[in-house]
Each structure stands twice: as C-alpha cells, then as structure tokens.
C-alpha cells in the first residue's frame, strides 16, 4: 500500500468517525476509527519520508516518526500530545468504556482535528526527501 493510499484510508476513517460520533451508542466505534485513522496518516508520512517503522502501531514509534518529520516545535508537541490523547482516551475507551458521553465526544473532535493535521502534513511531505516539515 502506498503513502497516498494510507492517507486516503485515513480520510475515509475520519469521515466515518464523524458520522458515527453523532450517535452516542456508536461513538465508541468512532473513537477507535480515529485511532486507526491516526495510524494510517502517520504511516502515510513515513512512506513519504521513506521511513520504515518496525512497529507502526506502537505509539512510541509514531512519536519518533513525528519528531523526525515535523520541525516546528509547538506543532510537533501538539501532534505528539494529540497522539497520546487518541491512544490513551479513545483507543483505551474502546476496550474499557472509561469516558462519559460528553468527554468522549470532545476527544473525538480533538482526534479528528489531529488526523486532519496529519493528513495535511502527509500531503505536504515531499516524497522520500527526508525534509522535516513545519
């Protein structure tokens, strides 16, 4: 699968998540789709940088990827914070149901905003240049 295909999947997943999030009973699934979308968007960035993560579903590997790929510190920190939020709140909630409805909806909003930013970065990352983007 190419980087562009991973990016397209991420776009599809967040669109599905936004629709599912409108129903409280489906919001749990929406949160998990956001986690999947975040991983696909990160893998798209990795492809464009010709970076081959050994364990692309491990958050710490994605942290390393974003640290390498994004030069501007405040944006990079926001992305890494967001990735932590999506994993620790949304992905974990899929198994534990730990969040209330309002908190879950807000974290889904934040997760979708994160993925949209990651998709933008993947789209702007020159293929295999290794150049960090802002």
């Amino acid at each position, binding site marked *: 699968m190419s980087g562009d295909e991973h990016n397209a999947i991420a776009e599809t997943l967040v669109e599905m998540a936004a629709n599912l999030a409108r129903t409280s009973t489906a919001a749990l699934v929406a949160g998990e789709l956001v986690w999947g979308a975040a991983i696909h968007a990160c893998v798209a960035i990795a492809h464009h940088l010709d970076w081959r993560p050994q364990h692309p579903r491990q958050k710490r590997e994605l942290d390393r990827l974003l640290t390498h790929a994004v030069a501007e510190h405040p944006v990079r920190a926001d992305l890494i914070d967001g990735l932590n939020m999506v994993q620790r709140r949304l992905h974990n909630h899929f198994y534990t149901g730990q969040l209330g409805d309002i908190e879950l909806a*807000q974290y889904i909003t934040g997760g979708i905003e994160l993925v949209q930013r990651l998709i933008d970065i993947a789209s702007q990352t020159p293929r295999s240049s290794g150049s960090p983007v802002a």
Partner: protein
Amino acid sequence: MSETETRLPGEALLEAAEREIGKGNLREGAGLVWDATMEALAAAGARYGMPCGNREEAVELVNHLDDLADPPAPGEFYTYRNLVSFSVADSYREEHENREELLGDPEFRWEPDEYTLYLDSIRRFIKSLNNQTTGNTKQ
C-alpha cells in the same frame, strides 16, 4: 532562584517531578506531574468559583476553560485545547496509579523516555493556566 521570587501554582511541584523522573523514580515523578497540574487547575478554578479536588471536577473546569477560550489561533488546530493538554496530565496520573497494570500491557505502557517526552507540554499547560488565573492572556 532567590527566596523572594514568587512561585506560581504547580511550578514547584513540576520541578520536583522533573527531579524524580530524572533520578529514575518514574512512578513518583508521574504522581507529582499530576499533583502540579491539579494545583494549577485549582488556582484557575478559584477564579471562577469552581472546585477542583478530583478528576471529575477537573474535567468540568477544563470544559469551562475551553468554553471561555478564543477559537484556535492560526497554526493551532484543537478546539478543546485545554482538554488535550489535560489528557496528557491524565496519562501521568494513570502511570502513577496504574503503573503495575500498565507494565503488563506492552501497547500502553510508557518507556522511561516517555516520562520526559510530555514534560514540556505540561509546563506550557501550567503556564497557560496561571496566565488565566492572573488574567494575563499573553502566552
């Protein structure tokens, strides 16, 4: 630092957290990060007459702060800016309270370097909360 210099809520606890994490006392350090965040949140909550003695009250306060916040500035992208930052602090709380459980979970457990990864974000969050407490909106 001179003895007369005023410390803002959460700052001293965060410095203590950094020292503990630096010494490898990860669980203790994580707990101090959470304590530092709660101290800064409690001070911000006092401005609005909102209590902040536990996680539930903290979430309510964070929602209130996000309701009051300006829309994301250019380059920023989170509508619930305070909640995203709070989530990072909440992860430190989990690392403190559930560390043994998390150690057995390779997907969620933090490696030692991850305890330092988010400290700058917590520092920015505490600074932002203290700015809100004093009414100084400049970040």
